[in-house]
């Protein structure tokens, strides 16, 4: 087992078990809780893929459906042991993965065993499939009247003409009706293999004891069939349409969604650096000392709904700006002008140095909380970032590193969606 020191008093242990499962353990001996996540590399995008030179399809929303079904696996109540031990068990499905996680104060080893017990064999009854279909249909309806969600999806659809990027993770009420036993079996056969999984543990544990326990668990000792890595291709062809406007009198205010596409040359084969730079870059662009921020404030265009975030999912990436505003036209005109000026501006060295100091403090604080540090480690692993180098590399970021990102702010990379109350 390899120990990697990531900070002065924080270490991550890593081991690949005999069945191919990769385990990461981050001991936090002063804390009472332990958090455990089992990641399966199977998500909302995986409805068309290739395995062992054959092409396969699944109904959209299968990964999410399967996430629900795991709780009904083998007709047993997966949750029961966790509830009895006051552990919080939950799961979520993202575009690239499904995560099953629990946090507990008591009996961690026992619950870890119970977690993995549920991933050895898969058997779903027709009755539970039918039941979950109803529940998932209700879940999918929850965002039916969210105009903000619709506006964002319109943006992504306009930017990327690839359904694995813009399709809803949960599918639709029609596509999930096609999920049956056969579909679920195909999904578990291709994706629910230890070599396609990862286990992350943070908390009051002894790494050696955990590994010893795992090595003896049937999930590890079972004879697994051969695993064939899943191939996925994301086509990032450029779309010619850059603006979409929709009028809806029932809207209470106007929604603007902006996407600035990042060329794949900046992140393909360069995940680590891209992941490191995008957040601080946006911080510099939207810092209260920046021209952009001051202009928005001066024109009364800034409000609490303004959000700015880097989106990076491994195979595509963009900067997203979103706002709900009474002045959509003025906002779009102003922000567009300011964004197009970015290639020429020089960021303040003073502000950048202050930012670096704040990052030191933020890193210390994030490891002061079990949930936060687990989440941080998880996100780095999901982003395929080398944790052992990440924190050191963070300290070495320079202002010059941002130049390549400044230069992407040209008209051909900017996409805008406006949902307006009236014409």
């Amino acid at each position, binding site marked *: 087992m390899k120990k990697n020191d990531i900070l002065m008093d924080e270490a991550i242990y890593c081991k690949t078990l005999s069945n191919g499962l990769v385990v990461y353990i981050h001991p936090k001996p002063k804390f009472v809780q332990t958090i455990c996540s089992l990641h399966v590399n199977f998500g909302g995008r995986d409805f068309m893929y290739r395995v062992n030179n054959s092409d396969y399809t699944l109904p959209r929303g299968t990964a999410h459906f399967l996430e629900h079904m795991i709780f009904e696996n083998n007709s047993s109540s997966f949750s029961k042991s966790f509830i009895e031990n006051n552990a919080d*068990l939950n799961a979520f499905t993202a575009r690239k993965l499904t995560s099953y996680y629990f946090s507990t104060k008591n009996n961690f080893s026992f619950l870890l065993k119970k977690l993995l017990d549920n991933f050895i064999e898969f058997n779903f009854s027709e009755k539970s499939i039918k039941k979950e279909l109803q529940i998932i249909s209700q879940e999918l309806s929850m965002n039916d009247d969210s105009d903000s969600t619709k506006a964002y999806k319109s943006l992504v659809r306009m930017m990327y003409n690839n359904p694995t990027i813009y399709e809803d993770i949960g599918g639709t009420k029609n596509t999930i009706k096609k999920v049956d036993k056969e579909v679920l079996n195909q999904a578990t056969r291709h994706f629910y293999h230890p070599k396609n999984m990862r286990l992350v543990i943070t908390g009051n544990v002894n790494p050696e004891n955990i590994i010893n326990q795992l090595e003896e668990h049937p999930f590890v000792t079972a004879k697994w069939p051969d695993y064939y890595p899943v191939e996925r291709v994301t086509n990032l062809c450029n779309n010619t349409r850059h603006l979409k406007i929709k009028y809806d009198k029932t809207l209470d205010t106007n929604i603007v969604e902006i996407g600035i596409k990042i060329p794949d040359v900046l992140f393909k084969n360069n995940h680590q650096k891209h992941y490191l730079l995008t957040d601080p870059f946006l911080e510099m662009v939207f810092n209260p000392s920046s021209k952009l921020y001051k202009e928005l404030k001066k024109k009364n265009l800034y409000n609490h709904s303004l959000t700015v975030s880097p989106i990076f999912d491994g195979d595509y990436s963009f900067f997203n700006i979103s706002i709900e505003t009474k002045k959509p036209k003025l906002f779009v005109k102003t922000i567009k002008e300011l964004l197009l000026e970015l290639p020429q501006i020089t960021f303040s060295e003073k*502000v950048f140095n202050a930012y670096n100091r704040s990052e030191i403090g933020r890193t210390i604080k994030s490891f002061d909380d079990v949930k936060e540090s687990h989440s941080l480690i998880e996100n780095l692993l999901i982003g395929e970032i080398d944790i052992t180098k990440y924190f050191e590399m963070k300290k070495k970021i320079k202002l010059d590193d941002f130049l390549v990102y400044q230069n992407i702010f040209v008209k051909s990379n900017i996409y805008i969606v406006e949902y307006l109350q009236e014409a």
Partner: protein
Amino acid sequence: MGIIKRNILGLNLYYIPIKKFKTIEVFFVYTNEMNPETFNEKNFLSEILLDSTKKYPSTDELKTVCDNLYGLSKVNYYHYEGSLDISMFIINSVSDKYLEEDNIFSKAFDVLLEMIYNPKKYKGLIPKKSVKEKLSQAEDLLLSMKLNKNTYTYQQFMRQYTRNCSDKSAYFPETRYLKQVTNETISKTYEKMINEDHLQVFIGGDFDFNEMDQLVLSKLKRINIHPSKKYEFKPQFNSSPEMNYVVEKTSSGQTRVYIGYDLGFSHNQRNSLIMSLFNELFGGFENSKLFYNIREKLQLSYYVYSYYSPGNHLFYVNLETSKVNLDKAINEVYNQLVSCQKGDIDDELFNQAKNNLVNHLETTVDSQTKLMIYNIVDYIRYNQSFDIEKRMKIIEDIKKEELVDLIKNIKVDTTYVYTSKE
């Protein structure tokens, strides 16, 4: 080790020693009687004070100062509980022990005092420009809230649910009084907070008490210490004899339901804990009555939960369902309460809910902020520190008969339905 009380030249100071974290948190907590007419001012004031100060007159200057203090985080939190109005100003600073520089915490404390006691003013008043900006943002917020159906329906429900105590409740932005907000009313609210509100200071983390005493003493001249009345915490809910049933129709979307209850019993610490236990078993987790029956058994809803607010002694259920299942879902919620009131709560569920609550308490030690807030809340409500062991013992001792006896007073006060026109 429990809370350490100090009184330094009239300032009520409480140290919460928590050795395992690398940060120190400071809470300045101001309390007064809740007044809906100045609710907006209090909200705006909290934000304005943390935006800029006399010494750092722009947002970017203040941000740079905080960034240079290793990411000093500053937060304001304003809310009310029953009859009490509570403004909190909070900083979270990395402890000097974990940095290569000294006096970072002392400088952080100075920034906090600067924000609270040295606001930017023009001719003795909070600047009109700052207030105008906040009013404009509040208008945007009102529109955004309408757009977000979850937020909108929650607010609509709460206004209906607290209709009989609207002189003692408010929701931000409180539209009844928004037009009367000016820089003069905000300045007046500020002066009242500084000169009349009851102030308590809570400091949590790993530090030497005597050193902290000296530090606070050295900064006392900046803090306005005055004799002040300690305001009593008293929940304000009033019901009416007839059930309030409100339906609001919209163009499309899922049906959202809120059911608010009149608890029918007085608020004290023990009753509040019994009610928290009932909330847990009724709709607080995956094995609860509501979750099991409405979601798992009848598949009427993806999410359904209950919520008890000990601060305002309010209890409600929230669920989302399709229009066609509306009546069935509402009736099931009504039926589940009736069944609990008849004592139909199995022992396993009862004990599970108890264990859940105890477990939640035990894990508070993993969060410095949680520990701070639990202590502050217990001081505000019950004038005592947060004692985990004592709290756990009370919960463990609750008998099912006692719980059933208490909940039989609960009745539906308001049912609010937000549904489509078709």
